[in-house]
């Protein structure tokens, strides 16, 4: 694109627009970040200050000294990693079957999977809890992990991605005598990095920030996840007093940070752009 001078002003315009939109997208996050560095006094002053007069790190130190942060972090990590790995494996297996294998009842089964997304979670919540309780999984990692090990959403996402793999590749592999599992693991998984990364990010995001399910499953303070631990931290009768915004926002930032890191790592799988301009040049 550098070779084409006529494109330059257009690019500058596009870039400027991107910056404007990016500001819109980041404003609430920046507000979170800046508020987390203010004193409670400053957070409520009017007119509101944009930058904290003097950044206060005490909100974070308070968070880290009062909450057994390491333990909560470890719990969350164990649960989230297990769910992400489980979902990637279980969903990709099923997705391969739905996209590329023929078996009786395949389409009906697929619609059934789709249907599972159509029931609001609030409705199955209590029956699901009673079930997990009967299984004796309350207060265990297993109780936190098991319901998340597969997701219809993930299966659907990967199935659609697997549909775009050219049929010739499969035919060639089959003629070479490769087993279906080999085709799945050697052809489909490597070819669908971006989609697997997408599912990984979403599964991570969902599990890492989940509050409702851990709230029901965890009884022992030692088993709390990060989000749950921080929710307890803030549950001091918030309806009676003005919430401690800076602390609340510091807590939100602490929960978010790992998700951002994971997202940035996953970005590597979204390989460099196809860059139409450079092909043309």
């Amino acid at each position, binding site marked *: *694109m550098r070779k084409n001078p006529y494109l330059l002003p257009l690019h500058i315009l596009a870039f400027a627009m991107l910056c404007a939109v990016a500001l819109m997208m980041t404003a609430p996050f920046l507000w979170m970040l800046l508020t987390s560095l203010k004193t409670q006094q400053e957070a409520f002053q009017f007119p509101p200050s944009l930058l904290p007069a003097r950044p206060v790190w005490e909100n974070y130190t308070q968070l880290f000294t009062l909450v057994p942060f390491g333990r909560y972090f470890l719990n969350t990590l164990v649960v989230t990693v297990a769910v992400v790995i489980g979902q990637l494996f279980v969903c990709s297996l099923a997705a391969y079957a739905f996209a590329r294998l023929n078996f009786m009842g395949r389409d009906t089964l697929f619609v059934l999977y789709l249907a599972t997304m159509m029931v609001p979670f609030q409705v199955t919540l*209590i029956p699901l809890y009673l079930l997990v309780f009967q299984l004796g999984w309350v207060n265990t990692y297993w109780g936190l992990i098991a319901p998340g090990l597969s997701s219809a959403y993930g299966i659907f996402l990967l199935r659609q991605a697997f549909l775009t793999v050219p049929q010739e590749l499969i035919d060639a592999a089959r003629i070479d005598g490769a087993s279906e599992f080999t085709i799945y693991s050697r052809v489909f998984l490597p070819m669908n990095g971006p989609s697997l990364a997408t599912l990984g990010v979403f599964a991570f995001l969902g599990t890492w920030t989940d509050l409702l399910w851990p709230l029901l499953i965890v009884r022992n303070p030692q088993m709390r996840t990060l989000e749950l631990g921080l929710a307890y931290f803030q549950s001091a009768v918030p309806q009676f007093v003005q919430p401690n915004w800076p602390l609340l926002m510091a807590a939100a930032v602490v929960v*978010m940070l790992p998700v951002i890191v994971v997202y940035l790592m996953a970005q590597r799988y979204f390989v460099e752009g196809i860059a139409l301009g450079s092909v043309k040049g």
Partner: protein
Amino acid sequence: MFAAAKTGWRAFWGRWNQREGYVFVLPSLLHLLVFFLIPLGFSLWLSFHDWRGLTTRNIPFVGLENYQFMFGDTRWWNAVWNTLVYTFVSVPLGMVLSLLVAIVMNQKIPGIYAFRAMFFLPVITSWVAVSVVWLWILDGRLGLLNYALSLVGIDGPDWLSDPRTALLALILITVWKGLGFQMVIWLAGLQAIPKELYEAAIVDGANRVQQFRFVTLPMLAPTTFFMLITGVIGSFQVFTPVFVLTKGGPLGSTDVAVYRIYERAFVNFDFGYASALAWVLFVFIFVATLIQLYYMRRNLGGMYGR
């Protein structure tokens, strides 16, 4: 599928291929059965019972009473209507905007990694922070949006407090928050398109618009299909933004189906009726999905899925 004749082992392989399908699906199927179908069956059973207490003993069977009650429940039908409006506006809007963003994000632009990360930020930003900032933006008198509108001579409404605009404002906020999420899916779809197709199109003399029309769009069909189906399912179940921002008000203008279900279940402890409502919502979504499947199959042929 194969030109080769069905020799002995191939016939066997064909059957095994069938069986392999089940083997591949088995783990997710077991999961589905235990963690979804059983609880779901319980909720269907509940929808024919009057379970308003907390005990699991002595739950009276009431037949179709819950469903009959629903027909005269004006609050519920108002919520269903709002949900339909929400879905029909937010799904296309979100899909088109996020596709545009994804196409831009798929270019070689300085700082593209940073931009991609920034566009994903709203997805992970807590709803509390989101609501505070948007309340500032949308405020009737002091809000940023109405300030911008006043510059071009428009006297903007009090967006979230005016029954005429509250749903629209809610749609804009959710589209904004979901944009990064959808962008990532579109990006994955764009990345999967082989470069050779574009090279071939360029050789054939296709310009950018033609490349988009004849290469990008058809190759994105499976992604489009996915986005549409999940988008409709998801927006039929919109809940969190309503819960955080408007609680269904003003004057019921942002009341939605799942908010009704939530209130019936967790505020009124009226689980039988809430389950009945959920099953009716489920039927609505199911029908909507079948219609989409039908049209996709007819208009896109094999590309919606083989």
